[in-house]
């Protein structure tokens, strides 16, 4: 753990080297999140009562998703850069070191975007928690925290699965970028405004629903608008954890089958 911290500190110092870049990256993270917030506000003001949810409920959902996304980027996000690590031939070097390759990918650099991401997400989150019409009992607060962790893990599962694919074909980066955009575009709203087929795809194929939508429905008491049984919605954090563990297994298997990156 001490080692992880030391490397992270070195990485952080390294990003300070390129000063313009550092500022830009913080701005990128913030700007990205702000764009999501802007879009959400625009939709909420223009089309109130989205899917039968009050505006503040949707706001809580959006802010949960943004915060867990920010935490994901900070804690596990580097796995989405696997394709670059592969292309640079670094995986081969990682294999020679006495540390799990997954951890080394995570320690490959410090993602400055996350700083901006988190700044915006945290402020929106605080605001949403204050305005939303929910009685914050200790149990609910605990569930909220667990749900955030589950959200990080669920997104980590998607990222890790895509990273596993990138180990073999760096070109999959193209797909992961697209999925990232999709999740940004649709992760912040009650998914049942979409046709059933799409909603189910976002639940069972891409576990996006478990990141924020289902837990937010539990907290705001909208279980009746869901297409999945209530217990499944409540169990979202657990599903996030399971998905993450499964994706780590997938990573392990992919790594065993790693064939190197040709041409260099």
């Amino acid at each position: 753990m001490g080692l992880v911290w030391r490397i992270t500190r070195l990485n952080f110092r390294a990003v300070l080297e390129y000063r313009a870049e550092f500022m830009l990256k913080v701005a990128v993270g913030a700007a990205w999140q702000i764009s999501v917030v802007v879009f959400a506000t625009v939709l909420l003001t223009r089309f109130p009562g989205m899917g039968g949810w009050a505006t503040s409920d949707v706001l809580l959902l959006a802010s949960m998703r943004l915060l867990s996304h920010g935490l994901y980027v900070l804690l596990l996000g580097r796995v989405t850069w696997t394709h670059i690590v592969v292309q640079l031939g670094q995986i081969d070097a990682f294999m020679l070191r006495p540390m799990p390759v997954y951890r080394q990918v995570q320690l490959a650099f410090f993602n400055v975007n996350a700083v901006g991401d988190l700044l915006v997400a945290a402020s929106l989150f605080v605001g949403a928690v204050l305005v939303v019409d929910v009685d914050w009992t200790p149990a609910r607060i605990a569930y909220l925290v667990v749900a955030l962790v589950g959200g990080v893990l669920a997104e980590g599962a998607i990222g890790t699965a895509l990273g596993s694919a990138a180990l073999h074909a760096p070109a999959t980066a193209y797909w992961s970028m697209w999925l990232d955009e999709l999740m940004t575009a649709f992760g912040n709203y009650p998914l049942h405004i979409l046709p059933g087929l799409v909603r189910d795809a976002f639940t069972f194929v891409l576990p996006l629903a478990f990141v924020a939508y289902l837990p937010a429905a539990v907290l705001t008491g909208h279980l009746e608008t869901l297409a999945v049984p209530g217990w499944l919605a409540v169990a979202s954090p657990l599903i996030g954890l399971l998905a993450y563990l499964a994706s780590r297994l997938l990573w392990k298997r992919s790594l065993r089958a790693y064939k190197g990156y040709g041409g260099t």
Partner: protein
Amino acid sequence: MDAIIARDLTKTFHTIARRPGFVGGLKSLVAPARIAKTAVDGVSFSVREGELLALLGPNGAGKSTTIKMLTGILVPTSGEVRVAGLEPHRDRERNARTIGAVFGQRTQLWWDLPARDSLAILRDIFDVEAEEYRRRLAEFDDLLGLSEFWDSRIRHLSLGQRVRCDLAAALIHDPKIVFLDEPTIGMDVVVKEQVREFLRHQVEQRGRTVVLTTHDMTEVNRLAERIVLINHGRLFFDGSLTELRRQFGATWQVHVTLADAPADVAVPGLRVLRRDGPRVAFGPGDGATSTHEALRLIIERYAITDLAIEENDLEDVMREAYLHREQMTA
């Protein structure tokens, strides 16, 4: 007729120094410190048409920087360059038609296209006639064995295959002058030999002028008629291989085993490098003595039972030359 003339060529780089440590990093964010570094310092030489010149020197000597100035990529801080009568950085496009260049492992070919497509694009960029292009391609294939792999995409080629394609790419427009910055880096012995053959062919049959940098002394031995040595950006030798040997390679060792072992072994004009009982290694003393002369001197003085002469190879010569230069600047 001189194909390349460099006169008092100088290049100074200005870089921003990063301060060490975390606080230093922050400080550099606010007030960066600039430092100047002279990579090439008053280098003058010329290359005749149809000559192969090896530009040699230790790492960081300024070879690549010199080549970049000769190809017109870098503008010299001061001094003058003429390549085929043109000033490369002023007349970049015209210059580009008369030169070809390969920069080590960097490829100019398009990563996702088959090698042959890349060559075709360059053919069009350089306006090479179809008939000529075919002939040249056939020649390159003959010498470099390109057809084995030229239908594969560049990303799937091995390093040696790619550099061979790059050589062909650099010569596809029949340039009179060719600049090669470490072209054989990372190649196996067979491919290296193939490339050397190719270069020799280009110089001897096609009359091209070639400027080559390399760290491979076998290559220098086989190819170079003329050598220019630079270190710390300064030129300190310009001449043939034989001259280089004469100037820096006069180091040899004579190993003898003496019949009886006297307490003191000394021969005027020679130096005792090592002594291990009856076995003694002599090297040249202050005056430049040939091995021949040394043998005479030793045999005059001592009875010997065994004898071996060891003359330094080019790599030792080069080491000597680099170190010699190091001492001169110190």
